[in-house]
């Protein structure tokens, strides 16, 4: 049993939860994730560990409540418990001093990016952070990322915060500027965003690391459900990743596999809304 210490809404459908998990808090490295199962009978959900406090024995999770299961998880109140939290899983990020790096986050991917930026800053990198989302409420962690970055650029699709447009636009400017061009790029967000970033940096041969979030069950390499095509090889995101060389990832294949359960998920959302009386129309 893992007690919920804090649970705040920090954006549209986005919760920051602090959970007591002392062993995971001690063992965890930036880039790793946990698998959370709220209660018996519920789904196993992979969630990135955004921060950890080994002294307090807590981990911080940012959870976008978009499916039936994540909605139930964020519905857990402070003092209540989550039945299962397993981790830390996956490999920690390779953190070195590259010199200049660009960190690009899209939507809730920014929560995955945050521990990376923190570790990269500690390693002495000079960081340009670019975060984007649909509109102002989907921009998260700006206050936390700003002091870690040389500059923080924000884009929104509707222009309600920062520059109107996509994260790729400020990145294009950065790549075109010889004085600011980064030695490495980290990108975390929706698959089309990571694909677009990888295509831009490939031309200049800039090392680009992406963090993938495919469908996963056990998270320990057992099921192979999270397999992704990396160059000519099939890799398991849970044990070989979750970070991979963006130049080698088959993003189209990943996108497609993510739709495997679209029909079932829509059904499940509708069923849960009926049961718990949330909302009116299902997505």
């Amino acid at each position: 049993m893992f007690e919920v210490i804090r649970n705040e809404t920090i954006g549209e459908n986005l919760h920051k939860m602090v959970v007591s998990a002392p062993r995971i808090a001690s063992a965890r490295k930036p880039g790793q994730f946990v698998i959370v199962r709220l209660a018996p009978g519920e789904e196993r959900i992979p969630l990135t560990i955004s921060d950890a406090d080994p002294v307090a024995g807590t981990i911080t999770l940012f959870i976008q409540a978009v499916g039936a299961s994540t909605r139930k998880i964020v519905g857990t109140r402070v003092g209540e418990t989550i039945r299962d939290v397993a981790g830390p899983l996956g490999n920690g990020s390779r953190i070195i001093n590259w010199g200049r790096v660009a960190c690009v986050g899209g939507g809730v991917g920014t929560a995955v990016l945050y521990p990376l930026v923190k570790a990269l800053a500690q390693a002495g990198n000079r960081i340009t952070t670019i975060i984007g989302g649909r509109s102002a409420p989907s921009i998260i962690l700006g206050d936390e990322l700003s002091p870690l970055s040389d500059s923080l650029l924000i884009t929104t699709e509707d222009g309600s915060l920062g520059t109107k447009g996509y994260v790729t636009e400020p990145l294009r400017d950065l790549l075109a500027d010889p004085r600011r061009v980064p030695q490495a790029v980290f990108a975390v967000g929706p698959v089309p965003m990571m694909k677009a970033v990888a295509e831009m940096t490939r031309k200049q041969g800039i090392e680009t690391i992406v963090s993938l979030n495919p469908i996963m069950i056990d998270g320990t390499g057992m099921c192979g459900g999270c397999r992704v095509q990396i160059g000519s090889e099939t890799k398991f995101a849970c044990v070989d990743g979750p970070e991979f060389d963006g130049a080698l990832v088959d993003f189209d294949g990943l996108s497609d596999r993510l739709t495997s359960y679209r029909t079932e998920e829509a059904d499940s959302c509708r069923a849960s809304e009926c049961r718990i009386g949330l909302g009116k129309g299902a997505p």
Partner: protein
Amino acid sequence: MKNGLMTIQERMALERCVMPQLAADVRIRSFDEVNRGLGAHQALMEAKRCLRCRDRGCVAGCPVGVSIPEFITAVASDDLPRAARILRGDNELPAVCGRVCPQETQCEALCVRRIKGDAVAIGYLERYVADWAMSNPDRLLRDPAPTPTGYSVAVVGSGPAGLTAAGELARYGHAVTLFEALHDTGGVLRYGIPEFRLPKEIIDGEVEFLRQQGVVIECNVIIGKTLTVAQLRSQFTAVFIANGAGLPVMLNIPGENLKGVYTANEFLTRVNLMDAGRRDDNPTPVIKRREVAVIGGGNAALDCVRTARRLGAERTMIVYRRSETEMPARIQEIHHAREEGVEFVMLTAPTALLSTGDGWVSGLRCLKMELGLPDASGRRRPEAISGSEFELPAGVVIIAVGTVANPLLTASAPDIPLNKFGNILINSDGATGVPGLFAGGDIVRGGATVILAMGDGKRAAVTINEYLERS
């Protein structure tokens, strides 16, 4: 027959019992257990078939050395508490073994009665006694609690090897903590074997028995990630590693990443561990299609194909590159699958998984095979017949061609000796050569059977006990 005792001739005249089963048309609509278990009279008569021969071939054929004639004699004299005590004394998981052990190639294969007929149904009797014990806890003869030794042992993995080692070590009086990576116990017993062969309450019952023996169980702890082997070695006097061979083998043919393609582990885990497809409101989904092809010939392949049938598939196929004779699956499972309408597409090797272009698998391209000379496994090697290409339609394809060692734990502990496949190297008594570190089960053997893993756990417990007494 005098005084209720039978002569050898009378015993010889008794025919082997027939396990009552759910009818095939009933069972393909549910996950209820196929074998229903013997009735009391059936079990009594079957027990009387045992001749109590001197050879005791059955005991030699059992990887955990169950005192088979002794427990069967107790059944024959209608003394089930004594039968249960004898059985439990040798076997930590009798209700599991009575269901999933390949008795036909082990104890029963060496039964003297096979010379002139059928072996004693040892497996059925084991299950009968174990099930009786589980539903009659008040009548069990319990050994006094052992004196605590003050030594502590960590067991990694709650599959058959880990559960067995934990139970044996607890009996010696050692403080045992069992670590499990998943959210529930049992390892492959729970995520791998479907309920129509091994109901979850049987695993729960066996695990509960271990808890009563004082074994502490911690789920959601991944050794190599949550805690390291080094941490375990500093916190416990000895460590037994039995984390299984969890990594699925792929075929490396085109189309394996199409939607609708599963590994056996993923498909079985979804359905068995997560209950996918079994309730309409279950949050973990599984893809259901009319035509399902399972590639492979082992028990996992059979478990997948029969599960797919129960999820509503109309055409279910086992696609195997050798012939039925070479299939590693148990004969009983092949027989049950055929009764359930599973097609056996033999001497067939898939060369590609096909799609109609929408990202979903639509079938398999296959080559017909013929058997050549025996290969390293002793089985005749399948060879492709040129020009024999054909296609099979399938909306779900499940790859069930085995597993290899999971590197999660061993990658974090470089001093553990491994072979070239990543399996832990041990000497004949389960020691790794690293002081205080022992291993067994599939992480040592690669993919093997439940009972061989249990044999490893039992043997390692003896070795660990000796090690602790020396330390």
